[in-house]
């Protein structure tokens, strides 16, 4: 009971404080990435190893504490760390009630039904900047990335480009195709590329399909994000249909280094940069 009272006092103290929160714990990788982009280092992030492996940049400092799985961040550990703000996304709302016993919780949604992924990412950057009283840094980040995408657009508009499927391989028979609502769609729209996949997508902006669906737009090219799951390259080499797809025969298949598909503005910037680099190499010399 004493502890409970102390906790309440602590909470009231936090709210009453005028200064922006200093000790921030983050449950979602996209939010962690945006936070780092604003120049703030969280004290703890869930699944730090996964962040380093799948998101990579901006780099997470070594002393950031690992909170365990994102679906079940370790409550005992978190309460020992005494954060003054916990950032989650609606995806992890199930643990919100538990987290609120430790510190104020703020939920930020990059993905929602109302806005497309890129706009959602901008919105989250603004909300986060406001929370941390770093509005200037937030606007600067948004402007920088908008400008960067415009720059990519101008560069790519010089080349005759086909429509592109944006995909990640699940195995040699299945791909995830990114379309409406995805962050990639937002980037494609802004750099002036056409998405070959116009079909329905889920909440996160992708659909899963057999690779025969890639034949539906014979003129299109394919951009896939590495890494290829183990055995996939071998499987594709043995696949009769894959070898006969126009995009494969005519060598319009481009692999890009890993980008975490469900992240925010910085992931969008990285993706646009990789697109620019690769496509101007492929189409620039003609």
């Amino acid at each position, binding site marked *: 009971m004493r502890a409970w009272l102390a906790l309440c006092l602590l909470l009231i103290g936090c709210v009453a404080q005028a200064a922006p929160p200093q000790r921030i714990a983050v449950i979602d990788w996209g939010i962690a990435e945006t936070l780092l982009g604003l120049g703030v280092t969280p004290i703890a992030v869930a699944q730090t190893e996964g962040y380093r492996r799948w998101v990579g940049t901006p780099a997470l400092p070594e002393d950031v504490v690992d909170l365990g*799985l*994102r679906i079940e961040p370790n409550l005992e550990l978190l309460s020992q760390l005494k954060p003054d703000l916990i950032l989650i996304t609606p995806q992890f709302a199930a643990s919100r009630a538990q987290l609120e016993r430790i510190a104020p919780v703020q939920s930020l949604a990059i993905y929602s039904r109302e806005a497309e992924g890129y706009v959602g990412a901008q919105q989250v950057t603004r909300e986060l900047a406001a929370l941390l009283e770093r509005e200037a840094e937030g606007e600067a980040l948004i402007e920088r990335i908008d400008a960067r995408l415009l720059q990519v657009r101008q560069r790519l508009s010089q080349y005759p480009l086909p429509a592109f499927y944006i995909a990640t391989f699940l195995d040699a028979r*299945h791909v995830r195709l990114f379309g409406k609502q995805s962050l990639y769609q937002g980037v494609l729209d802004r750099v002036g590329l056409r998405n070959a996949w116009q079909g329905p997508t889920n909440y996160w902006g992708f659909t899963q399909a*057999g690779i025969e669906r890639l034949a539906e737009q014979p003129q299109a090219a394919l951009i896939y994000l590495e890494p290829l799951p*183990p055995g996939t390259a071998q499987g594709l080499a043995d696949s009769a249909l894959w070898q006969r797809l126009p995009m494969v025969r005519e060598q319009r298949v481009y692999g890009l280094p890993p980008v975490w598909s469900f992240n925010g503005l910085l992931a969008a910037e990285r993706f646009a940069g990789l697109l620019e680099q690769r496509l101007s190499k492929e189409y620039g010399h003609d």
Partner: protein
Amino acid sequence: MTESVARLPLGPRQGFNASPFWLCALLLLGVAALVINDLTLRLPGTPWLQALWQPDEGDIRQLVVHYSWLPRLCMAALCGATLALAGTVMQQVLRNPLASPTTLGVASGAQLALVVATLWAPGLLLIGREWVAMAGGGAAALLVFSLAWKRGLAPLTLILAGLVVSLYLSALNTSLMLIQQQDMNAVFIWGSGSLSQNSWNGVDFLLPRLGLGLLLLLPLLRPLGLLELDDNGAKSLGVPLQFLRFSSLTLAVFLSACVVSVVGVIGFIGLAAPALVRLLGARTLRARLIWAPTLGALLLCVTDLSIQYLAGSLAELIPTGAATALLGAPLLLWLLPRLQLSGGQPRGESAAAPLRYPRPTLRLLQLGAVLLASLLLALAIGKGLEGWQWQLSDLQLLDWRLPRVTAAAAAGLMLAIAGTLIQRLTGNPMASPEVLGISAGAALGLIAVLFLLPYSGLPAQLALGGLGALLTLLLLLGMSRRSGFAAERVLLIGIAISAFFDALQVIILAGGDPRGQNLLSWLSGSTYFVTAQTAFGVLLCAALLLLAALPCARWLELLPLGDSSAKALGVHLGKSRFYLLLLAALLTAGATLVVGPLSFIGLLAPHLARLLGLTRALPQLLGAALLGATVMVLADWLGRNLLFPIQLPAGLLASLVGGAYFMLCLRKR
């Protein structure tokens, strides 16, 4: 082919209207209609035969038909036939209409092998996924055989071993998937059975293996037919039982491993096709061996073509294997009242009763002391920022731990009692609360919450989960009232409901929706979301239901003796069964809402109590309750600390720890 059915001496005479012929003809018409419709859409204005056999290399539509559409159709037929064949052989050998290629742990073994290879030895996948899967499936089946070997591979023991190994391996699978979800998307797809093809390699792989299997089956046909008799009858006719069972089961495992390794888990066909064929009048083994593969092939083709027809309008990829199970469950429910099953005890030897411990009260006191010690351990010791810590005075930590430990203990206790009730009620050591399907019903409710009201909290989850459990319970009671709650029927209905739920879960996981991970965590029995109020509520619930179960001891003593003996001793069968069933359902629902539908405890605790010499009903009930609570508390503690800061769900740990011990016991017997 129908003539051969009629001519065989053992088969009852069947008219055309009772043979599987008409169903197969109907399905064949369906396949033809779907094929014509599909090809018209895919190849407008092109000669079909040319596209099918010699496609124009310049026309991508023809190429897709030749390298994707046609091999997929062939693959569906091949897989359906192979699985149905394997299922028929297994049902014959195990004398159990519920046996299927997944019963021996082949599917979960293969899946685990793939998961392990993906994570730690991706080089192996370069040699070939199918070989990795086959090795895993074969190893799992060998484990099952070795567990049942000492009992001469008796049907009941074998199925029990298969079930335990399956549960154990899927628990391992689930924990790996929880920790490393990003790498596992391919395994999810594979686990749900996608027939999608893009070359003829799959067909080339499967066809010769099916041929080989059929060839090897021929010399086994006659002795297998004699297995219709009981063990002594077959032995007196000179059938080498052990060798026959081992070789024919090995063959069936080989066939299912081939399918599983190429397209993944398509479980239901292997169960449904042989059962349907038997029901439609193919009584002899030979007739079933002809009709079941035919029906299996057609069933899978129709399902797969319909899915392709529908998939165009759906965003998510629907894996065929999961869809067959989704369609299959209602079919099984429809079949049940029509399926002729021998009531009472399954044939074959019943499990040998362990020695009774002379002083049950002392044993119960010992178990109580163990429970107290584990409660203390779970509350006081844990990892924190500075490593291991002994802290009983830190109220804040206790605030976190007490609800979890309480809920774990209460849930374990409820599952254990439910398990004891169901096992005594059905006289079947395979039975557990999970089999009743109540936990699956509750889980369906939670899935609805996750996807329809995605941002709602615990109260909505509890409410809808409870509603799901209640509806399942009503369905169960309604459907089994007509048969007077005959033990096997109740189990079958429960299995059908669980199958439906499994399919749905698999589709959701394979859809790649990141929310699936929330579901996975809850499904594996986590106490993470338990609040103080919930914990208190569950504890109260457990105490009340325990009190309600105690007066049933006499029924529980008499019911396992068989229907007639129990009746002669003055037990009202319908009434007592209804009451026990209701009690077990409530216990299961209460536990499921807290720790998810995984209920190895319900299977394990009653067995452990018996092994400790608590053989009579009341001591077994109490002993199981104490054991269930102890195991769950320890599992929760281990889960919180083993991979700190990552927390593994208690239900998962319980099945990992409990399952290993259970397998040891099974082997020693």
